[in-house]
């Protein structure tokens, strides 16, 4: 695969980002008209597209990271503005995360939705959602980013509303209200910035003309920054714009996993990183004096999310607030402006994705197999579903930041970065947050492993696939279990093998060094 790509003629390279976007788009178009009962064909299309995408990403990594190639494709869109798809290391990083997790989530969703209705619709929008995410990651300028960002808003609405219950419709409506409002703020910011500096092409150290704008017109520049980050902060669930996220929990578990780990929340954070690094540039942003407020906001969101998570009894809600908290680590790291902290923030994009998707997969498993929705219903589940519980434990330890998980690497980087930065107090935020994480995850782990299932009331022992030899032991559906185990394994792997070439940490460091010189 790799050699094939290296031998490929140079003019084919720019086509790859388009092919990747079109791949999942084609999958979506092919899936929508499929009749409800053609399960195999649908699964085939989904998995083929997902696998092809992962392979393309793997093929791109050496070319982009090592050889410094920047495949780019552009098409005219609006007068003076092109739709630009460009692959740079950060784009590849995010696209790699979404492609990999799309594959796993697809496998999971195929099992999860077995026997339910409207599967063609679900998988169609699922593919569109990934189309939008890949588009967001490859966007080469602000307008392209905006197009895919809004597309993401639209196509996630039917996913959140999938069950069609009044509660899910309400959650979807509120989600749409938040997301459209945020998108509109971004739109105004983009229009305004475009009027000043023309098409805002992403570039290391800030887009062309933006530095001059910051120097000559700090006030509009500040407002534009506020509009962009405020609008993106809605999807990134920055306090106080996080209200939609806990509500969106009514969606099917794979959707929650996708929203939290890959698509929506990450798109918002990725956008903030882009705006900070590639639109304004960290120097101009520092000149504007926006970094410290952003840092404080992120720190507050981290603590607030953790505190709220502590108060939730429902597993999915607890995970949702945990996401609000964890995603802000990325913003925190980026806002500290040094290589260590930025590496920690950027690598957390992937690490948090892996860990959170594991937790959501497991939460879905618990809910489906033993109908456990709250922490207390999980008592003794460790004996009944040992593999799922093990995967959940890995994810939870990762969230707390215990070695050797991926979470430890992120927090270590962020901590050392904080000490090296002008804001050493951030370390205390990290410590406090880790304690809170421990406070809300350890009771779950305790309930899983250290409560005897015999003590649990018999009516909670409903299950889907009881084992004959051991009535307490239940067999989890394979297509749900395997993805959870893979992501849990990856959580450990990227933690242990963080120093390998092309490991997330190394790529993140490469990105951070590229941005900060």
């Amino acid at each position, binding site marked *: 695969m790799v050699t094939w790509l290296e031998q490929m003629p140079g003019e084919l390279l720019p086509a790859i980002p388009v092919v990747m976007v079109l791949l999942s788009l084609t999958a979506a178009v092919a899936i929508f008209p499929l009749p409800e009962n053609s399960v195999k064909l649908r699964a085939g299309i989904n998995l083929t597209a997902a696998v092809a995408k992962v392979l393309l990403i793997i093929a791109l990594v050496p070319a982009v990271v090592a050889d410094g190639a920047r495949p780019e494709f552009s098409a005219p*869109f609006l007068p003076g503005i092109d739709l630009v798809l460009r692959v740079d290391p950060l784009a590849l990083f995010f696209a790699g995360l979404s492609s990999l997790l799309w594959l796993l989530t697809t496998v999971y969703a195929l099992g999860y939705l077995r026997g339910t209705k409207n599967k063609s619709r679900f998988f169609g929008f699922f593919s569109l959602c990934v189309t939008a995410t890949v588009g967001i990651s490859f966007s080469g300028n602000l307008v392209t980013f905006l197009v895919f960002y809004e597309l993401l808003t639209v196509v996630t609405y039917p996913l959140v509303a999938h*069950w069609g219950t009044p509660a899910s419709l309400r959650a979807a409506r509120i989600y749409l209200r938040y997301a459209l*409002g945020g998108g509109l703020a971004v739109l105004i910011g983009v229009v305004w910035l475009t009027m*000043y500096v023309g098409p805002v092409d992403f570039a290391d150290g800030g887009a062309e003309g933006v530095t001059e704008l910051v120097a000559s017109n700090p006030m509009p520049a500040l407002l534009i920054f506020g509009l962009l980050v405020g609008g993106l902060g809605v999807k990134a669930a920055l306090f106080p714009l996080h209200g939609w996220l806990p509500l969106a929990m009514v969606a099917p578990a794979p959707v929650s996993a996708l929203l939290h780990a890959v698509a929506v929340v990450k798109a918002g954070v990725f956008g903030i990183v882009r705006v900070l690094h590639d639109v304004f540039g960290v120097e101009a942003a520092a000149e504007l004096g926006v970094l410290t407020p952003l840092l404080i906001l992120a720190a507050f969101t981290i603590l607030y999310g953790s505190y709220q998570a502590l108060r939730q009894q429902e597993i999915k809600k607890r995970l949702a607030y945990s996401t609000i908290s964890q995603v802000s680590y990325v913003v925190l790291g980026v806002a500290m402006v040094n290589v260590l902290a930025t590496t920690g923030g950027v690598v957390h994009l992937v690490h948090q994705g892996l860990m959170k998707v594991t937790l959501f997969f497991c939460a879905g498993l618990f809910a489906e197999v033993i109908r456990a929705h709250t922490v207390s219903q999980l008592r003794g589940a460790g004996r009944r579903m040992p593999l799922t519980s093990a995967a959940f434990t890995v994810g939870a330890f990762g969230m707390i930041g215990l070695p050797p998980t991926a979470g430890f690497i992120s927090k270590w980087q962020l901590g050392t970065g904080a000490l090296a930065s002008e804001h050493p107090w951030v370390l205390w935020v990290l410590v406090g947050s880790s304690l809170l994480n421990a406070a809300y995850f350890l009771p779950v782990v305790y309930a899983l492993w250290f409560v005897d299932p015999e003590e649990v009331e018999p009516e909670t022992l409903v299950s889907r696939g009881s084992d004959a030899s051991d009535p307490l032991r239940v067999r989890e559906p394979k297509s749900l279990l395997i993805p959870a185990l893979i992501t849990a394994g990856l959580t450990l792997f990227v933690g242990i093998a963080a120093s390998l070439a092309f490991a997330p940490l190394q790529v993140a460091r490469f990105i951070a060094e590229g941005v900060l010189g």
Partner: protein
Amino acid sequence: MSLTLFCLGAVVLVPLLASALSVLLGSVARRVLGVITSAAVLGLSTPILVQVTSGQTLELALGGFESPLGITLRADGLSALFLAMTAVVGAVVSCYAAARPASTGKRLVPGTPDRDADKQHHRHTEPPGVWRAGHAGFWPLWLGCWSGLNAVFLSGDLFNTYVGLELVGLTAVALVALGGRDAWPAALRYLFIAVLGSLLFLIGVALIYSVTGTLDIIDSGEIITGLAAEDDADLAAVVLALCLISLGLALKVALVPLHRWLIPAHSSAPSAVSPLLSALVIKAALFVLLRVWLWVAGPLPELAILAWVLAGMGAAAILVGSVMALRQTRLKPLIAYSTVAQVGYWFLLLPLLLDPETSALEGQPGTTLDDGAVLAGALSGTVALALGHGLAKASLFLSAGHLKDLYGTDEIADLRGAGRAHPMLVMSMGLSAVGLIGLPLSLGFSGKWLLATSAVAAGHYWMLVVLVAGTLFSAAYLLKAVAPLLVMSEDDQTELTLPQAQTRPEDPTLTGKAQLAPFVLGLLTVLTGFLGVWLTGVLEVGAPW
């Protein structure tokens, strides 16, 4: 070249002849003729669009008569774009109407009242006869209307514009009346408005003629520009003419507060007619308005007050239309109010026309705008919004009408869960909602982008506020229309039962390929989002600046 000129004449005459011919035919033959004609018009419009896109304006003196009394057809960028949109929407809706003759109206046939069919309307006794779905009168009327639309878009002088507008108005009123007796009062009310608007327009045209001595659009524009350049120019007559023309056309496009007629007319019209009225018929008046303001009057400073009044009415339309749409409980009136709101966008550009300076951003680093850009951007934005509205609204009205025919009601509360059985209709509605809200990718987004950038460049920041408010409102009311269709169950356990379909369930036209028509239009709404650059380029052909 001569072939293209032939197309120019034929695109007006072919539907007119087909309309006359169809009167002589039976109802099945009319359908066939209708589809053939729409394919022909689509085919004839293509060379015109291609030729204009290549940068050439086309002109044809029909029948060899020269102006002032001859008929001059002229195609520039603006004409070609509206012509193309009309051809596409017209063809798709024609196919829908041919596939579902029941969607073309209701007719009273003599016979004993069939209990079932009678219940569909009124329980009590009526004039002897039964109401049956389907009205073959649709075809001559619609083809005549199409001919009128093309005549308006291609007309080179104001006189033929007037005749075209009248043909459109007359047939449109009759098309509304096809909706059965619930639609008659609405049709009559529409008739009064249409005639009043036309009379005001006619007086305005006469005034312009009395000043310039010509009815030719380009010639009169040049003469007025020449007059304005003189020092002691008395332009009172021109301003009065513009006031009357704008008022008359505002009546026909249903600009707030002159919008009341539109709601009953568009919502009580038959399923195949509402999309035509909303997507095409009001566009004719909009087209003439743009022609008169940009080509005939030009940027006269004397028109500032009128421009601001109209833009203010436009902003009010966005507000009033949206709020009223939010308050509707039925699908078709909601969509009709959404038209009222969308009409507002098309009037916002008028103050920009008089003040096309890039004043606000002059001297800023990196600004690459020149003065022509504001005018070009504002016009392209408005045209993109109008064309995008045409596609999206046609799709939305087709879907809504289809649902109404399926379930015998368009009460949103009764249609809860209808999306389960008809995913394609809901998908079409979703796609057109994307276009109407102006999310990317869609022509609506391109339009809003162009309008917003021009507004910022010219320092008209108020327009941003209006656009933002309009976007949020439209999202709210469209969500209100579409979301209930997605409901699967009333609570987490029970499944939802839908209202009993009033039409016979075995009616194959309701579940068959006809559903593709709104879907195609919805898809086009989104796909045309890539055409922003192309559209701006086409509008440069024959532009007045």
